[in-house]
């Protein structure tokens, strides 16, 4: 395990692991964001096939932005702050393989946004998700929730800011599986290993298509799909 600010990362059998380690709530400081970005740079260079992101300890996946950093923001610095936060989401979406969030506890505010940028979320029974922007007079997770979920469910989560426990998040489709806390990392590792065993070009083409599919009409998304299938067939031809 190597330190990268407060995000620790390692690579095991083509799977990259990032642990958000900033107790007690693993809040996102600039150092932590920098560590995540550094980890993904290494993962890309080392041709890692799938990534697991999780929080250190048992209490939180990620408690969101550091309110002390946020309190220091001025109109002229808020844009930079947002760009630094966005860079993490961009890195996750641009990474060629699946990124799996192992949600081990609280994921709220910017921490929920981080989990939502991941391709798949697996929760422990202790997972608690909250789009808490409305509870602290801010806005967060809107874009992600609206892309992930049907509008009705997204409105419920965003406008109430209420806590979704693991069971409800699973039923809503925000978690793909729920396991006991002691099994979470092994389960996420299993999902990652399964993804790592797939053809990486196929996975990358599928992820690129999914990333953009909601930004265009269905017809255009299907035209992109046909082009991707054609390119795959051409590349596979002897």
């Amino acid at each position, binding site marked *: 395990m190597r330190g990268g600010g407060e995000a620790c990362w390692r690579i095991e059998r083509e799977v990259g692991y990032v642990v958000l380690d900033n107790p007690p709530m693993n809040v996102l400081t600039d150092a932590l964001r920098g560590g995540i970005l550094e980890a993904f740079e290494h993962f890309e260079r080392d041709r890692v096939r799938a990534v697991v992101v999780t929080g250190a300890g048992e209490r939180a996946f990620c408690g969101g932005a550091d309110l002390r950093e946020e309190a220091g923001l001025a109109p002229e610095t808020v844009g930079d702050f947002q760009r630094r936060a966005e860079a993490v989401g961009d890195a996750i979406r641009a990474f060629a393989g699946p990124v799996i969030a192992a949600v081990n506890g609280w994921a709220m505010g910017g921490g929920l946004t981080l989990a939502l940028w991941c391709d798949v979320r697996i929760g422990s029974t202790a997972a608690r998700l909250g789009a808490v922007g409305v509870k602290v007079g801010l806005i967060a997770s809107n874009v992600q929730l609206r892309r992930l979920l049907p509008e009705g469910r997204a409105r419920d989560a965003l406008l109430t800011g209420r806590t979704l426990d693991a069971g409800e998040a699973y039923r809503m489709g925000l978690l793909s599986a729920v396991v006991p806390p002691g099994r979470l990392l092994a389960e996420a590792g299993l999902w990652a290993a399964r993804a790592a065993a797939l*053809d990486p070009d196929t996975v990358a083409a599928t992820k690129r*298509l999914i990333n953009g*599919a909601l930004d265009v009409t269905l017809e255009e998304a299907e035209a992109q799909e046909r082009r991707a299938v054609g390119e795959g067939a051409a590349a596979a031809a002897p």
Partner: protein
Amino acid sequence: MSAAAVDLAATRHGAVAVLAGAPGPADRWLRALADALASLEADRSVRAVVVAGWGDRPSGGEGAAVADEVRRRFREGRLPVVAALDGHVGGPALAAVLETDVRIAAETARVAAAGIDGAPARCVARLVHLLGEAGARDVALTGRTLDARDARRVGLVSRVVPAASLLEEARAAAGTIASRAPLAVAAARRAVRQARDLGPAAALAMEHDLFARLVETRDHKAAVAAFFAGTRPVFRGE
């Protein structure tokens, strides 16, 4: 003997036609399905269709091309389609079934959408628009097989029923649709398909236009008269 006679059995239950497929490769079955749908389109006494037999079909050489034709028929055709899913549904059969109006699964059904040869599965764009990104990433990016309950949770099927009652449940669902005012059903199908791509203002304008036309129909006036008379309306599609 025509392909349809070999691969597909068509039965009638009032205004519902049931197309049940014999085992065999997907391309051959989808070819027969396309032909059967074409002849049902012309039969105005048919108001809804059940299609069964999606599972356990190897692709066959022409699977993708024929799946495209069936998708187009579902999308542009007059008839609402209820799909009864059992067995392992994937490949061209999955691409086609995502265009049906209602999907009901047997408890024993399974679904997988894996791409091959560096190309995404030919249903990824549709999956994203149908399920949102959360479900689509789960289904298409992990390469995993979903059981019927997981398929329902992500919104890929509406209902899961015991295998023994699958056809009966699908027929009942199709019978309900067939009992509704045909012009209203057609308008709803069109509006649902186009609502997202049109954007809110244009979608609302389309709905208002459809409403203005429906309010003048004989079926609407008959339904209002039946409501006040305490009787059941008879819809003629006029």
